[in-house]
């Protein structure tokens, strides 16, 4: 008997075409969408990126961090610092923030990787609090009350307001596409296969020649760098930063965990579905105040009890679907 190995499925080929068309329509939003809609879509793209990154780190590498707001806030603050004091163009500052975050994440990793499980999670939170308290001490950036992005810096993005809004929108869309594509290509590679093995059993993975510590470090460094870039983009839209907003565990970690868990942790499709569900809930319940948060909590509890693999986990188990062709399929050759 002879067999051949393929990776794409009909669902994934259809998915690629649909995704490409959707991307074209979304890229043209400045010509068809209103200002408020574009701002909302921009926010969706940035949350989608944060969710994909957190999913790679927690869902695949098993690094359940509740402290990624450290890097969101760091990216935001670096945008302000590098443009105001360094005179960098905002986009250059955001990219530089990513590089600096990568360098910073290495010593942090050597510290917190000694902690396991729940202790690791708490350790990441402590680190994020240290970040918040440290940035609150920097008087040049407004200390505890924060500061605004100077008009000159804002104007350097684009002269007109509509130009800036279109640019912000495209940057957010571009970031989400780059994040999803990078995560996808990484998971498809040899190294990605190793990471997926770690997701399922660390003891078996190390017995089969996979260096767990190094793989996790790489994932942590790369996700931290990307997270800082997303943070820079978030605060380039907000135009104002303060320690509490920049290092908010609610905004940048709790919501992101909600998205990943209800969508389906440890799958590429999960964060995308979770983001759509999260924003659908938020937009419909926005007028009800605190009830909105209570409903989110309820949804999270129900999903965790009834469908621990999330919405995508249910769909995948039932229909054997895969939108991103990661799996290998063995087919008999006739």
């Amino acid at each position, binding site marked *: *008997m002879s*067999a051949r*190995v393929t990776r794409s499925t009909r669902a994934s080929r259809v998915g690629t075409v649909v995704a490409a068309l959707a991307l074209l329509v979304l890229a043209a939003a400045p010509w068809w969408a209103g200002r408020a809609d574009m701002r909302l879509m921009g926010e969706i793209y940035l949350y989608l990126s944060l969710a994909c990154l957190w999913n790679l780190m927690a869902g695949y590498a098993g690094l359940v961090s509740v402290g990624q707001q450290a890097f969101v806030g760091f990216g935001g603050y670096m945008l302000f610092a590098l443009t105001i004091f360094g005179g960098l163009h905002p986009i250059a500052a955001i990219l530089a923030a990513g590089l600096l975050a990568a360098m910073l994440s290495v010593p942090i990793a050597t510290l917190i990787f000694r902690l396991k499980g729940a202790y690791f999670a708490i350790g990441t939170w402590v680190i994020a609090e240290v970040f918040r308290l440290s940035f609150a001490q920097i008087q040049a950036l407004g200390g505890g009350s924060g500061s605004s992005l100077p008009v000159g810096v804002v104007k350097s993005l684009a002269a007109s307001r509509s130009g800036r809004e279109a640019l912000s929108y495209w940057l957010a869309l571009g970031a989400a596409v780059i994040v999803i594509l990078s995560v996808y290509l990484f998971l498809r590679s*040899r190294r990605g*296969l*190793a990471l*997926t*093995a770690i*997701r*399922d*059993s660390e*003891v*078996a*993975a*190390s*017995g*089969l*020649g*996979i*260096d*767990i510590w190094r793989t996790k470090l790489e994932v942590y460094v790369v996700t931290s760098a990307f997270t800082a870039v997303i943070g820079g983009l978030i605060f380039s839209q907000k135009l104002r930063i303060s320690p509490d907003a920049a290092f908010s565990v609610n905004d940048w970690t709790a919501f992101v965990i909600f998205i990943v868990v209800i969508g389906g942790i*440890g799958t590429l499709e999960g964060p995308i579905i979770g983001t759509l569900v999260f924003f659908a809930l938020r937009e419909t319940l926005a007028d009800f105040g605190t009830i909105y948060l209570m409903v989110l909590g309820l949804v999270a509890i129900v999903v965790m009890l009834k469908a621990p693999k999330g919405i995508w986990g249910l769909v995948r188990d039932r229909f054997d679907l895969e939108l991103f062709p990661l*799996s*290998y*399929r*063995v087919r008999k050759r006739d």
Partner: protein
Amino acid sequence: MSAILSISGLRKSFDAVVVADDTTFDVRNGEALGILGPNGAGKTSLFNLITGALKPDAGRIAFAGEDITGFSAAARCKHGIARSFQIPQPFGGMTVFENALVGATQGAGMHGAEAEEHALDVLQQTGLMPKANLRAGALSLLERKRLELARALAARPRLLLLDEIAGGLTDAECVELIDTIKRIHASGTTIIWIEHVLHALLAVVERVIVIDFGKQIAEGDPNTIMELPEVKEIYLGIDADA
């Protein structure tokens, strides 16, 4: 023939429980060695020490002439030591084929089509080809045990450690398994096998070491060993249903 694995003065204990007490033995290149002993004697711990899942308190492990005592589990696999787990540890979210592919790409360091061919080959050898596209989490216990063997083989080991892979098999399946292991052995792979199913073990191995409380209590040719009173005592009742 020269020793491929050389263990000397190996000690390991968890508080008061001694799992390796001055363990010392060599395994010749190409040999098939059986390890016997009652439950809790330290057999699996010995495997954990050889593969690097556990660090010894004292002693030295050399593989192919190189001191590997300080090597990580991953490095030891890359040097040619692979194992099956007594309690199967499948990559449950990946397909059976992908499980084997992990062994081929990460353990044996193969690339692309070569790795895929090799993964298909070990699935063929272990009878898992019909299940290739199934998620490993959906396999039965017996299939999981086969997957343990397939994945270890995919890493293309020079030394293969088998931890109770015959338990629970039907007679026909057991005969098939013995054939598979004999074939692997005949291809030049050194084998150390922990097994309670004695007739399966004795059909393959050339030498047996008996351990209890981490101590080596007997060693030698399988037929002689099985006649020893202390070994009979251990296996009375276990051999009856095997």
